């Protein structure tokens, strides 16, 4: 019986790979968008304007304080009531980007705050304008603190992308769910799904760890 299920499962592996591709596409697009948005928000968060900083802080709190599944329901079910009708895929990307950009914002803000104040002053004294100070002096140093947790956020986002299956995006988890209805071998099906996630996430976790070690060693050497 189990052998029969296993052979059927092997037959539908292309189906799983399609799901994996969808997971990669959804998280890839959200990754690019949320990195861009997160960096902008993070830089504004450390800026001089109190009001802007506070409002971004509130945004971050709301994103961090509510479960992603509730956020995605809000995007998918409530935005249409307010006149923004989205398909499942754009809704998923919007929700993932909104949440991850909040997390990345905090990572970036933390990295910028970790750069000593003297660096800003030195850059200003060299006659660089605000944008040049940030681009040429502050961010290159902040990247050392930002990079490892940033990769960690990407891993979290790829894992959270499994939740968009609830609004019907046919990504990896959704494929597993559809399969288990037909092949009642829950352990086998979701082990396969888990292995496919592992293949993407584990190297990224290792990358984050090695970045952390390499970058902190470098700072010791200086």
């Amino acid at each position, binding site marked *: 019986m189990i052998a029969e299920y296993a052979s059927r499962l092997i037959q539908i592996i292309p189906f799983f790979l399609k799901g994996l591709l969808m997971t990669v596409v959804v998280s890839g697009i959200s990754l690019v968008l949320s990195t861009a948005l997160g960096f902008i928000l993070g830089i504004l968060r450390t800026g001089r304007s109190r009001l802007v900083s506070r409002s971004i802080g509130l945004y971050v*709190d*709301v994103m*961090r*304080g*509510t*479960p*992603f*599944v*509730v*956020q995605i*329901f*809000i995007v998918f*079910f*409530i935005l249409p*009531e*307010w006149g923004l009708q989205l398909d499942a895929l754009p809704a998923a990307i919007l929700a993932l980007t909104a949440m991850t950009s909040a997390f990345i914002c905090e990572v970036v803000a933390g990295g910028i705050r970790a750069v000593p104040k003297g660096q800003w002053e030195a850059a200003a004294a060299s006659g660089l304008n605000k944008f040049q100070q940030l681009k040429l002096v502050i961010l290159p140093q902040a990247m050392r603190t930002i990079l490892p947790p940033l990769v960690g956020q990407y*891993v979290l986002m790829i*894992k*959270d*992308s*499994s*939740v968009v*299956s*609830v609004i019907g995006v046919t990504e990896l*988890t959704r494929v*597993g*769910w559809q399969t*288990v209805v037909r092949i*009642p*071998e*829950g*352990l086998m*099906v*979701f*082990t396969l*799904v*888990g292995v496919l*996630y*592992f293949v993407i*996430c*584990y190297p990224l*976790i290792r990358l984050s760890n090695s970045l952390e070690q390499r970058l902190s060693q470098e700072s010791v050497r200086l």
Partner: protein
Amino acid sequence: MITNFNFRVVWEYMPLFMQGLRNTFLISLVSLILALAVGIIACGCRLSRWKLLRGLAIAYIESIRSTPLLVQIYFFYFGLPTLGLRVPELETGIIALMLNSGAYIAEIVRAGITSVSSGQIEAGISSGLSYFQRMRFIILPQALGVTVPPLLGQAIVLVKDSALLSLISVMELTRCGQELTSERFMPAEGFLTVAVLYLCIYYCLKPLAGWAQKKLIFREAY
């Protein structure tokens, strides 16, 4: 959009929301306590001298950290019945949450223990302190400062993660929002109320984490 918001329905469903809030709180608390136990045991194995135990602990921790919680929940939800085990949804969910958070807590505890430098332990040994005295007076006071703040962070994550149990029809807070959506088709009233209630929990736990950070890190640094 606010003018359409039907507070009367929210009020009518308030007992349901309160019950959901209570269930979310209880589920998170029970899972957290169990996860602490799992995490400490896993961390003990991870730091053990025996290769087999260490390997098992690493396999457990890394496989949990590299796969989404939702896949783990489905793994148990669809997988346990194929093993002939009939476990109710609530218990299935708590098992998944426990094992998931346990892996993260194991890493938090490990970071705490390894943060105590070996010189401290050697100093303790050469002062003639026994193993328990060293634990009580040297290792734990320092390790707790590094461990408790991220543990409270994990508690916040756990509350949010418990929202995923709504997908296997456990009657917790997010499920109340789904109920309101399916019975009255009022997703805005349902999910915004749910989001606000989650934010309430978040704003209770967040200052606690900040307070612990100040209090304990200070103690570590004196």
